[in-house]
């Protein structure tokens, strides 16, 4: 399921589960759930400039970033706008969980990046089969989405503009 350009380590479920469980996004998740996710997961690494997905593509995969960073972008005609960058410990991809399972932004590796890649269909199926896992995962996705929403709101406030409280008068 990996897109061309990415290189993958040979999957080894036992070691993968331990490593996967150590990722900041999954920290504290019961081992039995991590073991289920590990079966849908492969370690991967991508070079700088690697295009994970484009706006409108089907959201078939999700990633947990282990190192490096990734830019989320939009492409209005003739331009590329970087919306946000993600880094170590972050979840890359939210749209895989929400119909119609299409990416709302594009994503490109800003530097060589190491990740866990998970098959979205397998993860969704595992969540449907075990609501306990679904709840644990949803809590984490919600936390990531909430942090990004808060960050977007803060950026809208334009905090670095000169505030009236520091304006001086002669």
């Amino acid at each position, binding site marked *: 399921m990996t897109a061309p350009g990415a290189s993958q380590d040979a999957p080894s479920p036992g070691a993968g589960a331990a490593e996967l469980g150590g990722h900041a996004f999954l920290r504290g998740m019961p081992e039995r759930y991590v073991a289920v996710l590990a079966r849908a997961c492969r370690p991967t690494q991508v070079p700088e400039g690697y295009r994970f997905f484009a706006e409108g593509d089907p959201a078939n995969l999700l990633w947990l970033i282990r190192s490096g960073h990734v830019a989320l972008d939009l492409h209005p005609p003739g331009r590329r706008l*970087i919306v946000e960058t993600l880094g170590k410990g972050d979840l890359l991809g939210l749209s895989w969980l929400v119909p119609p399972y299409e990416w709302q932004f594009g994503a490109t590796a800003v530097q060589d990046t190491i990740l866990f890649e998970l098959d979205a269909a397998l993860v969704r199926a595992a969540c449907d089969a075990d609501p306990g896992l679904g709840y644990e995962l949803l809590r984490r996705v919600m936390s990531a989405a909430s942090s990004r929403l808060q960050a977007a709101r803060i950026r809208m406030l334009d*905090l*670095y503009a000169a505030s009236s409280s*520091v304006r001086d008068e*002669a």
Partner: protein
Amino acid sequence: MTAPVLPARYRVAGRQEETHDTVTLDLWPVDQPIPAYQPGQFTMLYAPGIGEVPVSISGTGPDAGLVQTVRAVGAVTRALCAAGPGRLLGVRGPYGTGWDVASAADGDLLIVAGGIGLAPLRGALLSALGHRDRYRRIVVLIGARSPTELVFARELDQWRCSGAEAEVTVDQPSAGWTGHVGVVTQLLPRAGVDPARTTALVCGPEVMMRLTARQLLPLGVPARRIRVSLERNMRCGVAECGHCQLGPLLLCRDGPVVSYEVAAPLLAIREL
């Protein structure tokens, strides 16, 4: 020692434009210099014939000189920003509390700056880098509105070479920007500092300082080891006029640097 209330004469020896509205001045004493400063303290900087404003000290120069960074937000600061080499200015101080960088020794030092909030932190950073072996990690996280509004950008590589891990994020990237995009608080979880051994120095817009502290607390950094720099309308500098009162504090004396333990309830007060 009480800082004098009469300004000492300083001459502008250098002027560096940081951004379209922010300038760093190198000031040399003409007569007796003001007493030695602690990083985090400020001076009252006087533009003759126009007025006086509080300005944090960003560092020291040769021969008891001062480095001060000013953002043009009104008549006095516009005059200060326009002051070219040779211009005489008045300096009172240093006033207020410092970052107490030395208390972070043997642990991780985390510096979080937003916008021009980097100016009062620069002295603390240089002080720590000057004694690099006393600290474990020195992590510097900087947020700016855009790449062109980043102050001290020219010094970033030097700080990294001296042992700081410095990351910059911007709200509005320009074409060709390959760094982080987002608010500075988003860099915190990625920094991977050891909360139990971290001292955090935070300066920037109050909302940003509050969010930073609120993110550090659940990670396990105690409120007493999160320090923020509060800005109010300092006038006299010696806790006499009351203009800078915030709750029980007169910030020109009891601040600007206070622990988040003290600052948290005060930052929640809706002021008149």
